[in-house]
C-alpha cells in the first residue's frame, strides 16, 4: 500500500506539489493523470525516493520513505518515462546489475528474466549493448529489470510511451496478473483509454494540486474519462 500524506514539494518559490494526499491500496491498479508539467513525475520521483519533498510523508507498506528509504525501495520497482539506462552496458548486464542490487537469488532472476524477455520478444537482443536500442527496446529492458525482482509495488511513469502494440498488450497483462497476486500498481499516463479500462481508481492532478481522486466510476459517472479530464482542465 502507498499512502501519500500532505506532500508538498517546492522548487525555489515554485510549488510543484501542494498538500497532495491519497492512498493506493494493495491489489489495485491506480492511474495518475494530469497535463504536462502538472506534477505527476515529481510525485512519482518522490514516491520512489529520487526526489525529496518539503512537507508531508509517503508511506510504503507501513514504512516512511523519509525514514526507511532502503527498505521502502526494496519493496518497489520503478520504470521511468524516459529510460536513461547505462548505454555502454549489455542489456543482460544491466538487468543483472539491478538484480544484484536487489540481491535476487540466481533461480528467481533466471526464471523472471527468461519469462519477460520471451514475452517482450527481446531474448536475442540481451547480449547487445543498450546504446544500440530504440526507445521502445530500452523501455522493455527497464520493464524486465523492474519485474525481475518480483516487486510488491510497481511504479511506472508513462509506461506505454514508445512501446509497440504487442508490448502494450503484454504490459497490461502483466499488470492484471500482478494485482491478482495482491500487488500494487501505480502509474502515470496520458492515454486515458488505457487508464479507463485498466484501473480501479484514478487521481487527477492540476498545477500541483489534486483535483479529483476516487473510483473510476465515481470520477467519470456517465461520461468518459477524457471528457472529465478536459472539463477539469477548463475549470
Amino acid at each position: 500500500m502507498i499512502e501519500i500524506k500532505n506532500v508538498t514539494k517546492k522548487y525555489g518559490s515554485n510549488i510543484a506539489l501542494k498538500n497532495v494526499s491519497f492512498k493506493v491500496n494493495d491489489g489495485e491498479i491506480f492511474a495518475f493523470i494530469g497535463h504536462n508539467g502538472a506534477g505527476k513525475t515529481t510525485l512519482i520521483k518522490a514516491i520512489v525516493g529520487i526526489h525529496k519533498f518539503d512537507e508531508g510523508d509517503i508511506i510504503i507498506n507501513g514504512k516512511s520513505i523519509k525514514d526507511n528509504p532502503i527498505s521502502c525501495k526494496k519493496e518497489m520497482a520503478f520504470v521511468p518515462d524516459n529510460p536513461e539506462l547505462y548505454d555502454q552496458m549489455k542489456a543482460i548486464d544491466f538487468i543483472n546489475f539491478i538484480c544484484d542490487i536487489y540481491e535476487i537469488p540466481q533461480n528467481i532472476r533466471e526464471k523472471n528474466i527468461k519469462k519477460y524477455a520471451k514475452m517482450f520478444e527481446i531474448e536475442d537482443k540481451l547480449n547487445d549493448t543498450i546504446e544500440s536500442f530504440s526507445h521502445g527496446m530500452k523501455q522493455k529492458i527497464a520493464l524486465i529489470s523492474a519485474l525481475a525482482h518480483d516487486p510488491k509495488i510497481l511504479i511506472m511513469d508513462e509506461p506505454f510511451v514508445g512501446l509497440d502494440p504487442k508490448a502494450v498488450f503484454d504490459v497490461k497483462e502483466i499488470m492484471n496478473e500482478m494485482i491478482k497476486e495482491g500487488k500494487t500498481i501505480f502509474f502515470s499516463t496520458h492515454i486515458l483509454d488505457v487508464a479507463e479500462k485498466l484501473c480501479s481508481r484514478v487521481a487527477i492532478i492540476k498545477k500541483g494540486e489534486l483535483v479529483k481522486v476516487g473510483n473510476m466510476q465515481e470520477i467519470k459517472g456517465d461520461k468518459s474519462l477524457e471528457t472529465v479530464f478536459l472539463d477539469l482542465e477548463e475549470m
Partner: protein
Amino acid sequence: MKKYISLIKASMTEGMNLFRISTKNKNTFTKFFLPIFLVLMLMGTVYFYSDLLMKELSKVNMEFVLITLFIIFTSIMTLVEGIYKSGNLLFNCKDDNLLLSLPIRRGTVLLIRVFKFYIFELLYNSVFLLPAMIVYAQYTKPSFIYYIVSLVGLLVFPIIPILVASILGTFITFVASKFKGKNFVQTIITVIFLLVILYFSYNLQNFINDIAQNASSINDLITKLYYPAGAFVELILKFNIIKLLEFILVNMVLFVLTILLMSKLYFNINSSSKSIKISKIKKDYKIKTSTPMGALIKKEFSRFINSPVFVTNAGFGLVLFILGTVLLAVKFDSFADMIIQKESTMDLDYIKSCMPVLLFGFICFTSFMTSITSSMISLEGKSFSILKSLPIKPYTIIESKVLTAVIVMIPCILLGDIIVFIRFQFDLFSIILTLLISILLPLIAETLGIIVNLKYPRMDAKNDTEVVKQSMSSSISVFIGMAIIGITIVLLYNALKANISNNTIMLAFLNIYTIIYLVLVLFLHKTCEKSFDNINV
C-alpha cells in the same frame, strides 16, 4: 547571419558555462567565489614562477624567452589534451539530432563545435599566458603596442593547436568507427598518438640542436621551432604592422581552410561514429550473480573503459608514471650526472639515497593529477536517477566509485614502485613506507575527487569531454591537487635540505596523510547522503 549568431549563442550558453552545477545548493560562494579564487590562485602561482624565471632571464637580457616558453607550453598542452578531447567534442554529441535537423549547413555544425573548443582553450591558456605577459611587461616596461600585440596573441595562440588536435581527433574517430569496439580502439589509438608525442618530446634535444645549427639567431630558432611563438616575439621586440597582419592572417587562413576541408568529411564520420556494429553471431546470454558492491564496481568499470576521454585522461598519467620509473631505472646515471653538474655538493650516492623521497614526490604528483572520481558522479548524467531509486545507501555507491578508481590506479603505481625498488634496492622499511604511501595517496586523491564532484556535479553534459575536461568539478580537483603537490614538494625539498632521513620524512608524511584521509572519510560519511539528495537530474 542572425541565425549563426543565435546558434553560437545557444551553443555557448549550453556548453561553455563552466560554473554550471546540478545541485539545489547554488550559493554564491559555491558557484562563483570558490572557482574564481582557485583560478586566481593558479594564476598567482604562475605569476610567482614567471617572476622567478624572469629574474634570471633579465640578467642576460632575454626576457622574451619567458613568453616563448609559455606559448610553447600552452600550445603543447592544448595539442596533447585536444587530441583526446576533440573526438568527443566534435562527434556524436547529444545535440547532434537537433543541430543536424536544422536548416543549416553541416559544416556550420562543425564550425560551432570547433569554435566552442577554441573558446574553452582560450580561457584555459589565458590562465597561464596572462601572468607571464604581465611579468614581461613589469620587467621590460614596453609601449602600449605590446598590450595590443599580447591581446592579439592571446586570441591567436590556441588556433593552431586546436586545429591540429581536431584533425588528429577526427582521424582517430574515423579509424575507430570502423571497428566493433570503437571506444576501445579510439582509446588505444589516442594513447599511441600521445606516446608518439612523448617520444618526440623526449628526443626534442637533438631536434632543437639540428635547428639551432641552421638558425641565424635565437629568434630565428624560435620561429623555426614554432611559428606563432617566433612571430609574436618578433612583434613585441620590433613591431611591424605588416608582420602583425601576416600573423593574424596566417592563423585565420589556416582556421578557415581546416574547417572547409574537415566539413567535407564531417557528416560521414559523424554518422559512422554513431553506428553500432552488432555481432551477427548470437550467443546465449549469461545470468550471473554478484554482491551489490561487486555489481556497482563492475558497472563503474564498464562506464570507465567505454569512455575514451575518461580512460585517456586518467590513464595517461599512470602510463607516464610507469614509463618514468622505467626511464629512471635505465637512465639513472645520466640523470644523476645532470644534477651533479648543476649541484656540485651532491654525489651519486647522495642522489641514490634520496630515491625513496623522490619516488614519494612522484607518487604524490601522479595520484593527485589522476583524479578519476572527480568526474564519476557527473558522468552518470540522467541515469543518476537509477542509482537514486535503488535500495542501496548513497555511501555504498560512493564507496564503489572510489574503489573502482583506486583499483585502476594502485596496480600501476605499485608496478612503478617495484621497478624502482629493484633498481635502487630500497631497505625493507622504505619499501613498507612507500607501499603504504602508494595506497594512501590514491585513496586521498579519489576521496577528495568524489567530495568535489558531489559538491559540483554537472549532470547535463552533452559529451564526456565536457565532464572530464571542462567541468567545475574536474577543474577544482586539478587545482586542489596542484596545491597539495606544491605543498608536499616544497616540504620534501626543505626536509631533504635539513638532512632529515628519508624514512623519518616519509613516516611524518604518512601520519599527516592518514589524518587527512580519516578527516575526508568522516566528512564524506557525514555529508554524502545530503549531497546525493541535492543532485538534480
